[in-house]
């Protein structure tokens, strides 16, 4: 009997059933994808770190090293299983040319290494330990991912030629969070280049008891051994490797929570409407002595059928999409061997969604208890009082057309019902606005100020120590009438003294910072000789704030500089400083000459003119420069924002359609009454349009408020991961406050029109029964 009831019911309400099923399928798919990704990520990570024999404790060190003393320490500590010291030859990004691209703008510390002998192996893309020959270069896999180079390309490092033989997985430094990237060369090649860069040491230990890493780290630190640099543990390596895919999983989980919420809302709404529609029947069933659980079963069975179908569809979809999302994990970490387990967990996740739906339906059905059999049979509808909107009466209404009044009144009288729709619309408008504002913000001209770049048109980067060349450029600019102003900054590496007395390299931009000012998240630009501004990443690492003092070695003497401000920076890995003092000893790494043109349309012409004139300098249009630094981020956010708009509109249309269909079914009686008393079909439609538009407007307002508070906060968190500290949305009012709402209103109007088309078919005589 159940089967027949369910089949009839589903056939009667195809659109509603289908919409509910789509949302269930989407949530099942997302949950299953998240589960599959989690298992694959942990599996692949485990395989990678086992094959590579990742270091348990690593201390980086720049400066002199006493290997004998370290060996003694390792021998005496009974937890040490293996010990080694590897070299890392730090090479300036500008000196590394892969194919046609140089790594000058790379935010990473790039350097060369040779293959390790004991552990911490660099692996090829099949997971094997690489055996490198002379003349071959293995490149970190991240440069394959961003298309910097491909196998077979010619590579030039500090003037030495190599062939890119392949790519390597580095279990310690794969992640963009690691900050350093190891290129693999043969021992012979390494020996040849060794004096062209600065050597850092990786002091590495494998432990017998991994759980005692903490104790070992303390022992190492208290032994007073080499420690000029950060120390990293196995746990941190795991975390860094997992983070970027972990973020994606987190985003998928977040979206799946939203979609599950929407699915629940749909179910709640359709179920409430269905109960109201069947009120009399339910009363009759109660009256003839059916148990509550029997009546519940009829409804539960239908949703169980929908949920089961949706879950299976979702599971199938998750299989179609998982390859796409697993690509990144496959590339960086390789295959996972527990794919069976992944599928199992996916199924468990879907089962949880399924059970949650059943539990939820069961919860909503609890209100059966409140249905009085007598009342149901006599009145056929719930006699619950309508709350609110009492004072909003038709006789006192002068403001609105009667249809508009009736629409608004209905929303106010049945707030709980419309709250369901409101929540969905708030989520939709949030999804539309946040990515769009984020895109608008990071693509706006002023955003580069947040990124540590001033508002100029042309940027000339002159590498190396040729002050003469920079002076010639400046002289040319001085005589160039099209250049309205210019500034010269020289970048030098200076030594800073840290709290514990060790020295650390810091890149300082020297020059006048007031010509092309940038945004300071705290404080202001350095103005006096004894002032310095730090990028936020530097300030964080040195744990300094505005007003603190930092010790710098300038011309051989230690000098105290007060921190005047902190700014966000995406250039040079985000680790820079700005000051105005003069220094004549340290080498200039490069000079940056920035210029503003009196006529912006000349930018292209000027860029090529200067590029021709000074062929050793790198001349770029600032838009071009920003595109290179932020381009991929901007375009992926742009893609995401379009996708978000599409997704949100689809959700809006589907949900509005569903709600309208349900409402019309629910309100059959009222519609028949109104039509009997002379209201036309267009009157009825106008009332429904008013209802949805009213709810939509509230939804858009709430969604926009939420987007500009919570959304801005979330986006700020994301942005801060690449170096910016303070963050406010740069909103394009036309698009955020006009086009987006208009699009939503359009979508809702169309959906309402389609959804209420059934209202005209309601027969008066059949619905005003005596």
């Amino acid at each position, binding site marked *: 009997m159940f089967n027949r009831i369910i089949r009839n019911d589903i056939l009667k309400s195809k659109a509603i059933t289908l919409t509910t099923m789509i949302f269930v399928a989407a949530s099942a798919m997302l949950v299953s994808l998240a589960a599959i990704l989690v298992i694959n990520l942990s599996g692949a990570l485990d395989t990678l770190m086992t094959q590579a024999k990742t270091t348990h404790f690593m201390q980086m060190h720049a400066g002199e090293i006493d290997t004998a003393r370290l060996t003694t320490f390792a021998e005496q500590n009974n937890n040490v299983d293996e010990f080694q010291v590897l070299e890392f030859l730090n090479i300036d990004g500008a000196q590394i040319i892969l194919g046609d691209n140089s790594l000058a703008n790379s935010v990473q510390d790039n350097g060369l290494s040779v293959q390790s002998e004991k552990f911490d192996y660099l692996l090829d893309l099949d997971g094997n330990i690489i055996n490198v020959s002379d003349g071959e270069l293995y490149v970190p896999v991240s440069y394959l991912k961003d298309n910097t180079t491909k196998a077979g390309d010619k590579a030039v490092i500090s003037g030495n030629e190599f062939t890119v033989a392949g790519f390597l997985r580095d279990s310690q430094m794969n992640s963009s969070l690691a900050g350093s990237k190891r290129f693999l060369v043969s021992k012979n090649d390494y020996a040849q280049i060794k004096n062209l860069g600065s050597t850092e040491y990786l002091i590495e230990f494998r432990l017998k008891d991994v759980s005692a890493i903490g104790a070992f780290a303390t022992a190492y630190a208290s032994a007073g051994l080499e420690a000029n640099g950060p120390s990293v543990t196995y746990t941190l390596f795991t975390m860094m490797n997992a983070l970027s895919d972990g973020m994606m999983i987190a985003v998928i989980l977040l979206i799946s929570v939203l979609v599950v919420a929407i699915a629940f809302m749909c179910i709640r709404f359709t179920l409430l409407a269905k109960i109201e529609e069947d009120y009399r029947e339910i009363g009759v069933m109660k009256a003839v002595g059916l148990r509550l659980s029997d009546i519940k079963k009829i409804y539960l069975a239908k949703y169980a059928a929908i949920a089961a179908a949706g879950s299976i569809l979702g599971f199938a979809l998750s299989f179609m999409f998982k390859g796409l999302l697993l690509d990144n994990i496959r590339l960086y970490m390789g295959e996972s061997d527990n794919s069976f387990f992944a599928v199992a967990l996916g199924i468990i996740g879907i089962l949880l969604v399924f059970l949650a739906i059943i539990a939820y339906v069961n919860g909503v059905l609890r209100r059966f208890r409140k249905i009085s059999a007598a009342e149901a049979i006599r009145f056929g*509808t719930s*006699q619950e*009082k*309508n709350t609110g*909107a*009492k004072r909003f*009466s*038709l*006789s*006192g*209404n*002068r403001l*609105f*057309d*009667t*249809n508009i*009044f009736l629409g608004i*009144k*209905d929303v106010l*009288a*049945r707030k709980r019902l419309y709250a369901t729709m409101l929540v969905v619309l708030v989520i939709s408008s949030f999804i539309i606005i946040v990515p769009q504002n984020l895109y608008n913000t990071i693509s706006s001209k002023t955003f580069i100020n947040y990124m540590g770049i001033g508002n100029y048109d042309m940027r000339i980067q002159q590498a190396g120590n040729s002050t003469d060349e920079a002076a010639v450029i400046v002289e040319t600019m001085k005589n160039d009438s099209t250049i309205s102003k210019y500034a010269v900054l020289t970048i030098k590496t200076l030594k800073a003294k840290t709290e514990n007395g060790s020295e650390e390299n810091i890149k300082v931009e020297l020059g006048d910072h007031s010509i092309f000012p940038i945004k300071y998240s705290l404080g202001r630009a350095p103005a006096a000789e004894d002032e310095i501004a730090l990028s936020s990443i530097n300030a964080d690492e040195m744990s300094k704030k505005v007003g603190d003092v930092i010790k710098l070695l300038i011309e051989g003497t230690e000098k105290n500089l007060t921190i005047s401000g902190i700014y966000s920076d995406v250039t040079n890995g985000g680790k820079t400083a700005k000051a105005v003092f003069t220094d004549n000893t340290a080498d200039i790494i490069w000079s940056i000459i920035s210029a503003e043109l009196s006529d912006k349309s000349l930018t292209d012409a000027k860029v090529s003119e200067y590029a021709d004139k000074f062929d050793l300098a790198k001349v770029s249009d600032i838009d071009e420069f920003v595109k290179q630094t932020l381009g991929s981020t901007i375009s992926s956010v742009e893609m995401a924002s379009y996708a978000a708009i599409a997704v949100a509109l689809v959700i809006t249309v589907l949900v509005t359609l569903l709600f309208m269909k349900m409402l019309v079914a629910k309100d059959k009686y*009222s519609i028949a*009454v*109104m*039509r*009997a*008393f*002379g*209201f*036309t*079909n*267009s*009157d009825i439609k106008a009332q429904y349009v008013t209802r949805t538009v009213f709810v939509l407007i509230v939804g858009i307002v709430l969604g926009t408020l939420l987007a500009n508070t919570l959304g801005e906060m979330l986006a700020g968190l994301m942005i801060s991961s690449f170096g910016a500290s303070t963050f406010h949305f740069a909103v394009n009012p036309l698009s955020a406050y006009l086009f987006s709402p208009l699009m939503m209103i359009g979508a809702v109007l169309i959906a309402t029109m389609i959804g209420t088309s059934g209202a*005209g078919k309601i*027969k*008066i*005589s059949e619905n*005003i*029964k*005596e």
Partner: protein
Amino acid sequence: MKKIIIGEHIVKSYGEGNEKRNVIDGVSVEINEGEFVAVVGPSGSGKSTLMFALSGMDTVDGGKVVFDSMDLSAASENELSDIRRTKMGFVFQQPTMLKNLNILDNIILPSMRGNRKNGEKISEKARAIMERVGIAELEKRDITQVSGGQLQRAGICRALMNSPKIIFGDEPTGALNSKSAERIMDIFSEINGDGTAVMLVTHDAKVAARTERIMFMLDGKIVSELKLPKYDGTDMDERVEQITVKMREIGI
């Protein structure tokens, strides 16, 4: 006398193929302006269906209905709506009120369509009518807060709002106790006294006895008709007797 409704050979059927049956089977009816008529018959005889057909709420499958010189079968949905709103009044067995609105708002609802500027005037008129039927104090109440008889009186007020040419009543006292029913019938008599035509559909001889012409309906056909003088409040028992005799004759 001018005819307000002319129904010719009306056919209305339900079902399809072999299942098809005529609920109204070639009925012709005429109602004069200001006339007070009743259609009497057992349930399933097609009397409510006839009312829905005559008021343009339902389309007919054969024949035609002319209301106030307008052919309803040729009228558009919107024209039908306009006629129902401006020239007809309806009172049903169940109160057919919107739950969201209070009594006054339910009464003025049809008049307020596209007419919000006259809200004050319309409300005043409604209050006057409510006063007349004795429910003036209920205007702010919810429809769940009043008795069935009071609700039915509110329904009559709504039907009277646009000063209709005819009021249709489909078992208007069917859900009421005898005292309330009597009160309602007094009101219908009063309305008819003012010159509005009233057509009641009922199976209750006591209700039919208030009218001047009674059509007896059986199996989709009008099988007989009875004319009575205008009711003056005196010979009720005799009128009821005449009707029940006729009903027994026909086999109702």
